[in-house]
């Protein structure tokens, strides 16, 4: 049921009129067994939660018995999200094949549907933990540790940061609830006798003492300072990986930030933030733990190299001012003048076409950066206007969301460049945008069938036949328990429809990966306001080759 990726889950969260409970008063049983996905053994005492996606009915709860069996005895007709939690396991959805993504299969109740033989394959979470020390064996407390996954995000393969944490007083860290896959781990920090940690003033001894210029080289697993020499840790479900990191003590330079007085940045209270980062594996960034010297951001003992220094002023949880600069650190101390500038201010209006489209309206505006993983949702007022807090000076795709009857037709602006639907906020200033949505959205739905029988849990992809460069035009759907799929809110156009067995690592928005499917998939042309039902017939699985 879940669309691919957390971002689209947000966008499409309420696109669910077809998920409403049937007016029929009959109720149905939803039952099955929970098994460990790696051992196939039944798992008792698992808490199962059945939720209707539109929240029209209160969640229902059940607990698996000693033999792993569970039952919801009186469920109205409809589609439901079934999730399971058990202590020691991460919360997960029915039909989920990897904890690293959000794909799941909805449970569907109704006449003729058998939901009494579900097998909930509970995936044991993997974890990575370790200790970060200096080369004398002393812990690096409050060191930054990043976890980077080599996987598919927004339909394309890339390396991206999935979690970060800071080490405890003993230099220990732990990333729990990790899905199977390939991960890089990196750490940065300072010797305890140099650093006093985030938000805390550097102590008197470091002001000019003999250790003031000592720092630590950042390290990528397995203990290399070269991101290109980093090795991934490949995890299977339930695996515990240990990744101890030793940060060599080296002479470095103290990097101090002069943010100027005009921005009146208060770094001590956390209203002002200075960040130092270097490029890590695959374009990701590895951050330095922050520290202050007499209220001024100061990164002690930074090893020679190329870094990005940024400052920002926070207002609530969002920045109001920001600036960054790439710097080359050598052997001498540096003071970098970096006054943050005003961030772009974005306001605007949603225009619904054709005018007078009834009560249909979007509820929120989404900005998704093309330059980073930043995304932000903001409510739209009843009159269709919005005034966003200051945004980072990046390029954004802007979408209006909250109604399955609409599709996003484009963005225009007289005050900022818009290229291929991307609003460029790097010029700053007051930017007004118009977000055009159309009430003439198309919809495609149907069933995945094999031998005439519905196939739940396969990944159905709808992709434009010509690359539109807009990720929202690429859709993926893991079929529900009745084999159904549904793509509402579509831009009219020419598409290709096909299915793959497992969607968790499929690059459904990568035109190169899609190329072979353009020929083999089913061509679908969707006119404005059209609703089409197409059943997708899947080939019989190839017989397994006998092995000796």
């Amino acid at each position, binding site marked *: 049921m879940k669309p691919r990726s957390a971002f689209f889950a947000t966008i499409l969260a*309420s696109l669910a009129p077809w998920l409403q409970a049937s007016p029929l008063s009959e109720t149905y049983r939803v039952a099955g067994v929970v098994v460990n996905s790696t051992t196939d053994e039944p798992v008792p005492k698992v808490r199962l939660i059945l939720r209707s996606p539109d*929240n029209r009915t209160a969640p229902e709860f059940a607990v698996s018995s000693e033999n792993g069996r569970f039952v919801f005895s009186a469920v109205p007709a409809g589609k439901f999200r079934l999730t399971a939690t058990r202590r020691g396991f991460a919360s997960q959805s029915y039909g989920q094949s990897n904890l690293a993504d959000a794909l799941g299969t909805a449970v569907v109740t109704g006449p003729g549907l058998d939901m009494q033989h579900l097998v909930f394959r509970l995936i044991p979470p993997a974890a990575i933990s370790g200790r970060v020390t200096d080369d004398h064996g002393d812990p690096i407390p409050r060191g930054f540790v990043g976890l980077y996954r080599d996987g598919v995000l927004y339909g394309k393969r890339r390396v991206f940061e999935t979690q970060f944490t800071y080490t405890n007083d003993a230099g220990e860290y732990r990333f729990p609830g990790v899905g199977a896959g390939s991960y890089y781990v990196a750490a940065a920090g300072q010797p305890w006798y140099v650093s006093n940690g985030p938000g805390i003033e550097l102590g008197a001894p470091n002001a000019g003492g003999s250790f003031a210029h000592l720092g630590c080289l950042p390290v990528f697993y397995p203990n290399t300072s070269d991101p290109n020499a980093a090795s991934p840790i490949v995890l299977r479900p339930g695996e515990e990986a240990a990744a101890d990191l030793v940060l060599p003590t080296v002479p470095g330079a103290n990097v101090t930030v002069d943010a100027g007085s005009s921005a009146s940045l208060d770094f001590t209270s956390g209203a002002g933030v200075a960040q130092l980062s270097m490029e890590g594996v695959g374009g990701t960034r590895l951050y330095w733990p922050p520290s202050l010297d007499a209220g001024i951001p100061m990164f002690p003992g930074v090893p020679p190299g190329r870094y990005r220094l940024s400052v920002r002023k926070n207002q609530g949880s969002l920045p109001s001012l920001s600036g960054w600069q790439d710097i080359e650190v050598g052997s001498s101390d540096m003071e970098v003048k970096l006054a943050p500038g005003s961030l772009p201010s974005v306001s605007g209006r949603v225009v619904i076409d054709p005018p007078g489209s009834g009560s249909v309206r979007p509820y929120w505006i989404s900005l998704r950066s093309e330059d980073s993983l930043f995304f932000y949702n903001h409510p739209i007022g009843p009159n269709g206007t919005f005034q966003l807090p200051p945004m980072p000076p990046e390029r954004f795709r802007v979408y209006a969301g909250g109604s399955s009857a609409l599709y996003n037709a484009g963005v225009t602006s007289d005050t900022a460049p818009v290229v291929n639907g991307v609003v460029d906020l790097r010029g700053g200033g007051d930017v007004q945008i118009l977000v055009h949505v159309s009430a003439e959205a198309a919809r495609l739905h149907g069933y995945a069938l094999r031998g005439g029988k519905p196939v739940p849990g396969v990944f159905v992809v709808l992709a434009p036949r010509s690359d539109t460069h807009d990720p929202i035009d690429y859709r993926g759907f893991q079929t529900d328990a009745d084999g159904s799929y549904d793509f509402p809110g579509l831009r009219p156009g020419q598409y290709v429809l096909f299915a793959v067995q497992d969607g968790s690592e499929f690059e459904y928005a990568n035109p190169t990966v899609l190329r072979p499917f353009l020929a083999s998939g089913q061509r679908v042309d969707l006119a404005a306001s059209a609703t089409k039902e197409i059943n997708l017939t899947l080939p019989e699985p190839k017989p397994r080759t006998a092995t000796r």
Partner: protein
Amino acid sequence: MNLRQTARHAVALALGCFLLCLSARAQPDAPPPQTFTLAGHIVNSVTGAPVPRVLVWLWGLPQRAVKPEGNPEAPPPPVQTHETLTDASGAFRFEEVAAGTWRLGAKRPGFEDWPEEGQAPLDARIDLTASREDLRVPLRPVTVITGRVADQDGFPVDGVTVQALRAEIVDGRKLFHAYGWAQTDDRGIYRLSNLWRGPYYLRVSGLSARTRAVFGRVLPSQATGESFRPVYYPTSPDLDSASPVNDAPGQELHADFTISMQAGASVHGVLRSFSASQPVKLELDNAAGEAVPARTEINQSTGEFEIADVAPGSYVVKASQSVRDETLSGEAPVTLAPGGASGLTLELAPGVEIPCRIRVQGQGEDGEPAADVPASIALEPVVKIETAIQEPISSQGGENAPISLHNVPPGKYRVEVSTSTGYIAQLQAGSKDLLQNPVLTVTPGTAPTLDIVIQAGGATVSGRVQAASGNLAGAFIVLVSARSPDLPVVDAVASPDGSFSLSHVAPGSYRAYAWRGRAQLEYRNPSAMALAGVEGVEVEVGSSDLKDVHVPLAGGSAQ
């Protein structure tokens, strides 16, 4: 301000005083200074074992850097430092240290970097006039508490909050301050580190999380349908019956918890008069006034909210939001049945304005009608567990300078009024007599005027602290009202011979206590005083002065 911050501020203050002293002692044309060696060992104050790799530093002004007298334009001399790390035997050595006055510091993770009382020479002043190689510097190890939180089936419970609380007595009241907190990981394991001298009480409560904001037509429920009630170490349901974990500096203490998961219910309601574009904070307090961490969620398009998975009982739901430098807040009581609670409406509003009217009566010392007497008014939030420093809402004024307390959020406050030339004869909030019970409950909307009557003058109570022996300088004397121990007290500090004088005392019945030393008396709690065997002495104050009151020193002889 926490203990460490206090310590750092103390360091800054000490350095300031120290530099001033040195400046005063500066001599023009001082001869070139001699240099000496300063060396010693760092040892664990509990085990006596040497501690390797401790950062040891000297800071201060050598004689030659002292600013010459008669040259006020000269830039201030730099503070000099020497640093080293102890070797495997815990030894440190500074060579060629200029003669002068220095301070010694030492730190290493796992040890307190501020000295215990009498733990010289750490942070002690060292007048270096000759080499010294015999310094023995004890460092007190910190306490680490780790453990595992499991449910009744033995499964680990992740994401719950474990707090380390330390009992402190402030102004005769015991309150608990949260000194550290940790969340259990996926294995149910928590680690509370770097705890300074205790003892500590431990509290396990629900999941701590920010209020999640969603937009759109629906509010997706976060409920899992199960909850647990807070547990205090070892298995107590409340703080009053809890036991502290034994203090054992340098040891890693282990405290496991078993929590009983039970059916949880959710609170559903609607927030009104809020800004859809600013974050909202939803919180829950239990009947004991303690914050109960819970998963909270609000739909900022509709105002619908959910507080998920809470044990049935009585609570207060609180909501707050910052909008353009103004804090909007609202709260409402809720009784949560096993099936949940719904239909709650919370209205956000700015804090209330509390006008204060001050009247002065009686005669001044000159026999004339008393002139305007300034008074300061403070509203101290009443909390059982202090998780952050909460500054009182305060103002100053007088009869001719009417004042108001602005933007007071809903809550319970202790009203404290003080004046230097009289006593408070009347303190009313509407019809509520705050001299009977000074706790004022502020609710959203309007608040009654605070009526304050200051009586000029008052009696003087003088006497002597009685002790078997010792210097009584610095002993504290306090008069606690017999009417209510919550009322403001009158206090003073004794002279070396034990004599004291308390002025501007209102007529009435009191109990007087005296004590000295770092330990504080919980003098507002009669049963705690009885338990500690501190009786004090009854004092009846009329309109005239009272002399020769003898107050026994708690604990017998002075130190």
